[in-house]
């Protein structure tokens, strides 16, 4: 096969170099992936289920290490720092993560959910600072107007879409460099999905967003760059516009035209 179509990025915020992740010996979920991510963009990771896209995302804040017998090779540079040489706790504070299903902490109020990152990490803040962080984060996710009168109610009383935006606010509150989202809209209805999508395109002004999605239309709508993975391999990485109009690899083309997936 000819040279893979993997574009280079100038001054990337995140640089993944020859990253491989194995769940058991020689059972690789991610095989030798090298990708650079541009600051203040939305990058979508696409591919059929089981292609390693979630594993790749989780390897970016080392959440994949929760599984046993994991083996990771290669380097991931976030702002020039190798995250595999930093303590995991620091890496995870530098990144925010949002999961498939909304998962606000059920014992905490909306307010406490937003500042959970500070509270649980034992960082003491003045009341005014807390108020400011909560308001800013909730405004960032366009939830402030909806919940400003019920900040001290439990987060689990919100609708699914509101809960997911609350979870994004929780990830933003800590001021992360990169936000990692693992199929954030797969449990949401279409209206809530479009709200989250609008939100992500807005958030890229201040944050770098990496998004795993199995929804090609969603990738086309909101991402600037797309990478296509197949069986753990990075097949193609390009500007989303180029990839959707003119895919270089046959497998990408077949996936995008719905021949498999």
């Amino acid at each position: 096969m000819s040279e893979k179509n993997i574009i280079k990025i100038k001054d990337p915020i995140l640089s993944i170099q020859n990253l491989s992740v194995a769940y058991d010996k020689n059972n690789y979920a991610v095989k030798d992936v090298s990708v650079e991510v541009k600051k203040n963009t939305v990058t979508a990771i696409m591919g059929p289920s089981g292609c390693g896209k979630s594993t790749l995302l989780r390897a970016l804040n080392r959440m994949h290490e929760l599984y046993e017998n994991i083996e990771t090779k290669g380097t991931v540079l976030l702002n020039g720092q190798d995250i595999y040489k930093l303590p995991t706790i620091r890496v995870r504070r530098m990144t925010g993560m949002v999961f498939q299903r909304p998962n606000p902490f059920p014992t905490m109020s909306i307010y406490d959910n937003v500042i959970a990152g500070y509270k649980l990490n034992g960082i003491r803040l003045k009341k005014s600072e807390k108020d400011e962080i909560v308001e800013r984060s909730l405004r960032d996710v366009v939830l402030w107007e909806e919940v400003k009168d019920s900040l001290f109610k439990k987060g689990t009383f919100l609708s699914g879409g509101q809960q997911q935006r609350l979870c994004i606010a929780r990830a933003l509150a800590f001021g992360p460099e990169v936000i990692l989202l693992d199929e954030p809209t797969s449990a949401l209805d279409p209206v809530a999905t479009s709200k989250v999508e609008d939100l992500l395109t807005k958030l890229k002004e201040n944050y770098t967003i990496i998004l795993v999605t199995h929804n090609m239309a969603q990738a086309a709508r909101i991402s600037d760059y797309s990478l296509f993975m197949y069986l753990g391999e990075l097949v193609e990485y390009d500007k989303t516009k180029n990839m959707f109009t003119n895919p270089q690899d046959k497998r990408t083309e077949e996936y995008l035209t719905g021949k498999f997936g």
Partner: protein
Amino acid sequence: MNALHQIDTSKRRLLKDRIFYWLVIAMAGLTISPIVLIISKLIAKGYKQISFEFIIRNTPDTYEAMTAISNNELIPGGIANGITGTLLMVVLAAIIAIPVGIITGIYLYENQGKRLANLTRNISDIIQGVPSIVLGLIAYLWIVKNVTNGYSALAGSVSLSIMMLPMIIRSTEETLKMIPQTLKEAGLALGVPYYKVILKILVPTGFSGLLTGILLAISRVMGETAPLMLTALGSSVINLNISEPTSAIPLLIWEFYNDPNMVDLIWSSSLLLMGIVLLLNIVSKQIAAKRK
């Protein structure tokens, strides 16, 4: 030909159906009848003695009881020494068993399928099956012989706490298993250290489940008599010193049984004990129902 013609619609089948229906009802009735009979008997025979006096005064001696009976009066005094003793020993047992049980439960939850965890879980199940009098013997050897040099509330508490442990361990593990994995991940993804994720996210989320397990364990050991005979021994006055012999409601019931003059007090003491245990059970059921 279809198979419909083979279905038996005869009277015989209908009769069998009827018989089975009533059999089920009869068995269910048989199951609940003891509790109904016990409670009604306890109320009928014990209500006369129950009063404020009964709760705040110590047990009378056999002479006082005899005089009262011959004068056709109610036996004076109460079971304050038993109530305080039971409270003292159950609270102390809970203080010992709750931290150990919850931490062990967390350990089992975190190490599913590991050998040492499986061994611990099996041993905990075995402890649950050990006759309570044997646990009393063990506490006798450990505490009465070596620590307090005599019968003591502490020894009683230790034997009760061993009984509580398996229940708390199991309920902690089961409760934590029911909490979605993704909450743990959400905490870890915020850079929260592992122990804080467990103590500040998982334990509060499962709090009502843990509480239910603890209350059930408490109500279970509250009525234990056998291990206390070998450890706490009993006392005719209120004792709050954990290194001294102490009474308990079930111990008093046993003492009343052995004293012909005190027999009347059995019913009221049992009624009170039963009431407390029933209340704890109802409260824990309520808490468990609320979380679903």
